[in-house]
């Protein structure tokens, strides 16, 4: 569309969708905007912002899907976003989406929108369900009471969409009007509102910015955001005096606060409106939700079913993900080889193949698990089981200061921290979310396994291998639990989210809705993590390859030359020796490089925990990805890039007198606990949303890793040597 303002072909209408979670608001939004969907983030929070632009009857209608909320108080980020958007952005029309089968609860938000006195249209969603349940609604009368047009909609079949758009345009243009809504409070409250309005009227700036009546109600409700807005004004003294008076009076008359009384009156209004206009069927019928719940969350089966489903998600995400992951790896290996053949050996080849292609591959390799995990999660979320999972698991997690919903990210952490961090978005409370994110890396991820296998293979008898591996995982879990407790009692002292959560009716999500959610997560990962991870991969590549030592190259070129012209060797022997020499050269070059220097530089720090500079280099390289720890050790021991459990490396380590069981244990603990790979750290930063958290997280995991490795190393040395 052209942005030429002279051509007023299309007039713009801005529309915001507001409604409860699980009211079908998102599918209504998806249905309305179709593929004209734009995803972003609300400023400062990790809540996704959905926008879409459609054309209708010569209008451009910009639709914003506000986060699902139950209310317009100022306690959750969703509520603050919703009310700030409505008050500050002043959308032309608000579409209030209601779950038609659950009007009483859904109308609470409606009453608060009514107090704002904005242009609104009500979409009575899930109308097919309403008809199926034989609920009869007197639309005309309800419209009069609520002061808004009500359009029955069904977002899955896109029924009522035209009528909805038609009403939006008409309400905006003023062609359709509605009577003022009939919401009022008991006499005392109304009197207090009047008095407050009279005071507010004395301040022109407040009057211009807010609806006076709404402001008065919010002040009576002890709403913190409006409080701080009013506090800056000169009339605050008058307001404060009035409020103190009211609070004292209500305590005396009602033994309650004004906020409670106002809420009671809203519910009373809703109850009255429903009694007047809605007819529910007479016969008693158990709902499908009752039946499913009586099995899924019953006292005996609830926990086993929950654990079983978690196991399934895990298998689905990582076992099924292994196949496409192998394809991606193979593809990038193939691509690397192909490019190598075209470009020929040299620095350019190295930067493209080992730097860029390996870097892009390293980003994309996570994609299958992200897609599969979010396919599973959005399905469970869509059906309504997710809330049940939190219900079942909450007691255990609450003991260590976490939330029932922390369970899924933690389990996912055993596969990969990247999708685990991303799945923390289901935790709405910041303290719960950050704490869960901090402990996820202690859930030993799949990429750390090769390191354990190598070290266990080198230092422990086969009979103990399984037990040692299990002990390492268990150690991680224990550290995670203790860390959660620590973080919750220090960083987030006293911040505990009340667990008051709806268990929504079971519904079958549409394939489209699930796929959209999955795609959005994948897109966000590629867009946000991709670029930075790629850049960092190139930096780490450079650290391992620069500066190039001419001397080393010269020495080994000479050696190669000697072998080449050695008459006593046949071709096969020559080839073997070439390989050996190249491996030694790579090892020397790595030692000479920045990474090698860093390894040596940090040696004093890691010596107390039993490591030398060679392990130091591997740990630095391991920041790129944990699998690289083993490959780097292979390079340093002049074995070429090695795979886990390779007999050569196992033998080298076993025969190296510098290494003992104590070193092996210490190294496993360190790899288990220290900062996870770069991709994960970048995703952590994006999801946590502030440098502060990223630094705490890096500092904390490094400290814990060092301290515990130190302890394990010295205890093991005392008892095992």
């Amino acid at each position, binding site marked *: 569309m052209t942005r030429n303002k002279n051509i007023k072909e299309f007039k713009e209408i801005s529309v915001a969708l507001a409604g409860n979670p699980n009211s079908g608001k998102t599918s209504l939004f998806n249905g309305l905007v179709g593929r004209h969907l734009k995803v972003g983030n609300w400023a400062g929070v990790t809540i996704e912002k959905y926008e879409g632009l459609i054309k209708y009857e010569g209008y451009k209608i910009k639709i914003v899907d506000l986060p699902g909320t139950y209310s317009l108080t100022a306690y959750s980020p969703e509520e603050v976003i919703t009310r700030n958007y409505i008050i500050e952005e002043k959308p032309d029309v608000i579409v209030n989406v209601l779950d038609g089968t659950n009007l009483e609860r859904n109308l609470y938000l409606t009453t608060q929108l009514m107090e704002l006195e904005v242009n609104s249209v009500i979409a009575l969603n899930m109308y097919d369900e309403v008809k199926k349940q034989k609920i009869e609604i007197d639309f005309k009368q309800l419209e009069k009471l609520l002061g808004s047009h009500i359009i029955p909609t069904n977002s899955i079949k896109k029924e009522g969409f035209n009528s909805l758009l038609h009403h939006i345009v008409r309400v905006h243009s003023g062609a359709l009007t509605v009577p003022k809504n009939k919401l009022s409070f008991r006499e005392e409250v109304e009197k207090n509102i009047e008095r407050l309005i009279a005071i507010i009227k004395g301040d022109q700036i407040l009057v211009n910015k807010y609806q006076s009546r709404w402001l008065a109600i919010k002040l009576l409700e002890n709403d913190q955001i409006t409080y701080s807005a009013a506090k800056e004004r000169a009339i605050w003294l008058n307001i404060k005096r009035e409020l103190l008076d009211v609070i004292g009076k209500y305590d005396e008359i009602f033994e309650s606060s004004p906020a*409670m009384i106002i809420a009671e009156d809203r519910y009373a209004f809703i*109850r009255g409106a429903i009694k007047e206009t809605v007819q529910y069927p007479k016969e*008693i019928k158990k*709902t499908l939700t009752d039946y499913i*719940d009586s099995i899924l969350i019953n006292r005996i089966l609830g926990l086993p079913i929950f654990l079983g489903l978690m196991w399934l998600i895990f298998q689905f995400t990582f076992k099924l993900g292994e196949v496409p992951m192998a394809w991606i790896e193979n593809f990038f290996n193939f691509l690397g080889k192909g490019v190598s053949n075209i470009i020929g050996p040299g620095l350019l080849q190295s930067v493209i193949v080992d730097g860029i292609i390996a870097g892009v591959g390293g980003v994309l390799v996570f994609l299958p698990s992200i897609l599969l995990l979010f396919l599973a999660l959005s399905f469970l979320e869509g059906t309504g089981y997710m809330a049940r999972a939190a219900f079942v698991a*909450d007691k255990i997690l609450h003991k260590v200061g976490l939330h029932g919903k922390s369970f899924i990210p933690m389990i996912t952490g055993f596969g990969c921290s990247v999708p685990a961090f991303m799945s923390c978005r289901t935790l709405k409370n910041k303290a719960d979310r950050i704490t869960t994110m901090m402990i996820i890396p202690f859930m030993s991820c799949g990429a750390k396994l090769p390191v354990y296998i190598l070290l266990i293979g080198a230092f422990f008898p086969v009979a103990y291998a399984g037990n040692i591996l299990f002990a390492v995982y268990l150690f991680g879990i224990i550290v995670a639990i203790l860390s959660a407790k620590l973080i919750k009692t220090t960083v987030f002292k006293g911040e505990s989210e009340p*667990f*008051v959560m*709806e268990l929504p*009716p079971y519904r079958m999500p549409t394939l489209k809705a699930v796929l959209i959610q999955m795609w959005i997560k994948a897109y966000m990962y590629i867009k946000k993590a991709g670029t930075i991870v790629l850049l960092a991969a190139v930096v780490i590549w450079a650290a391992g390859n620069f500066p190039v030592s001419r001397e080393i190259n010269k020495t080994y070129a000479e050696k190669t030359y000697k072998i080449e012209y050695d008459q006593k060797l046949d071709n096969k022997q020559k080839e073997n020796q070439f390989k050996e020499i190249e491996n030694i050269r790579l090892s020397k070059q790595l030692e000479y490089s920045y990474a090698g220097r860093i390894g040596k530089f940090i040696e004093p720090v890691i010596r107390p925990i039993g490591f030398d500079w060679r392990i130091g280099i591997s740990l630095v390289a391991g920041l790129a990805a944990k699998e690289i720890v083993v490959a780097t050790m292979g390079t340093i021991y002049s074995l070429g890039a090695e795979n886990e459990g390779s007999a050569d490396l196992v033998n080298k380590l076993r025969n190296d007198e510098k290494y003992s069981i104590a070193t092996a244990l210490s190294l496993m603990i360190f790899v288990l606990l220290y900062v996870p790979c770069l991709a994960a750290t970048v995703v952590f930063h994006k999801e946590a949303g502030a440098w502060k958290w990223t630094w705490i997280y890096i500092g904390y995991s490094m400290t814990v890793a060092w301290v515990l490795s130190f302890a394990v190393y010295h205890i093991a040395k005392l008892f095992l040597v």
Partner: protein
Amino acid sequence: MKMTELKAGDKAEIVFIKARGEVAIRLVNMGLVKGTRFKLIRKAPLGDPIEIMLRGFLLSLRLSEAESISVEKIGHVGDGKPMGGGGFKRRGR
């Protein structure tokens, strides 16, 4: 009595909410105010949280939150006692 003293299947009415601050607002936002009638559906497998039905929908809350809610028991499931309000009518009476 406190909400935590109810058994699965009990119907009750809220008489007083002791909680203040954020917890109180959360409870109110989810429909728990003085006079609200509800039914205790079940306790979680490990005994905490609990699940109640009010205003035609299901809500879970922790014992620590339910602790602050005083209720009066009005009946038990199947006794035909009305739960009041439109909500429960959804499931029929």
